[in-house]
């Protein structure tokens, strides 16, 4: 627990350091730091893209209510990108392999193998954005569940390159397992240069705060 809090604090601090970007796959040689927080979990993903088709990196997650954490390697693969004159669509596959640690159903301190698999789709223009992502988690005796997330967004103004860009967005989350529920999170996305931030509050009262930086 202390380690997770410490790790997340370090990442938040990194968010204020110079340099860093949102796609799970970047340009060849690009690094990306993604730090996300919502009602359910905190996560950190740092990845490197050797080519424009895939990225590999470290991922950690802390699931607050169930008090368990994941540490492992994540691979993101760009299956298809469709570029049109006024829009872009992406299809990604993601997977993670590592260990889980928690108190649920296992002796305290015992590490268990854990993995997840993910499908992500997005489509955007300069005015509209929509995305869908799902993920299956397996952490042996600690957690097994399915999570899916859909987003829609609209830009209230069209910014030029270099402006602060603002999006009004809505996220719908569905999670199975012990906490089976659907939540709605209106949030605002801001980005400028290599920095992207998202801030919102769900209908369940959970705060969403995400930071993405691309180097």
């Amino acid at each position, binding site marked *: 627990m202390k380690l997770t809090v410490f790790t997340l604090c370090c990442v938040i601090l990194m968010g204020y350091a110079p340099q860093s970007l*949102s*796609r799970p796959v970047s*340009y060849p040689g690009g690094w990306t730091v993604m730090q996300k927080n919502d009602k359910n979990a905190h996560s950190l993903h740092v990845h490197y893209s050797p080519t424009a088709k895939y990225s590999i990196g470290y991922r950690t997650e802390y699931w607050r209510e169930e008090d368990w954490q994941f540490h492992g390697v994540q691979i993101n693969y760009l299956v298809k990108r469709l570029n*049109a004159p006024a829009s872009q669509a992406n299809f990604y596959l993601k997977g993670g392999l590592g260990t889980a640690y928690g108190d649920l159903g296992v002796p305290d301190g015992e590490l268990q193998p854990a993995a997840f698999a993910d499908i992500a789709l997005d489509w955007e223009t*300069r005015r509209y954005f929509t995305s869908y992502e799902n993920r299956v988690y397996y952490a042996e005796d600690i957690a097994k569940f399915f999570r899916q997330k859909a987003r829609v967004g609209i830009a*209230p103004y069209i910014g*030029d390159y*270099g*402006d602060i860009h*603002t999006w009004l967005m809505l996220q719908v989350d569905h999670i199975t397992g012990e906490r089976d529920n659907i939540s709605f999170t209106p949030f605002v996305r801001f980005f400028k240069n290599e920095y992207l931030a998202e801030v919102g509050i769900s209908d369940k009262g959970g705060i969403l705060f995400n930071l993405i930086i691309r180097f």
Partner: protein
Amino acid sequence: MKISIRVIFFMTLFFAFQSLAHGEHEHNHEGQVVEPSAVSNNMGNVACEDTINIKVTGLVCDFCARSLEKVFLKRGDVGGVKVDLGKGSIVVAMKPGLTIDDATLTKLIADSGYNVSAIRRGCEHG
């Protein structure tokens, strides 16, 4: 609840400020004039014969388009890059006397996440 009200209040202020600040840019877009301060201008004074204008598809997101600068500015032969989201194009300023062939340009654009639809060199693109 108090936190929610504060967050909404500050966001409203931010939007109001952004909308006001942005009005002038939209006007310029209608007139098809690129406002120099509205684009990344790391090109300095470059003669038009040393520039390449590349029309690309998929250029919709400022945050993602940063990869264009990252990819091109890593090269020793490129002096600057100017991205225009409104026109869906980028202008690459080459160092004097240097150039990049079309195949390499297409590969660099693909590495940045986009596709090339047209390449015009020198002063022909004005």
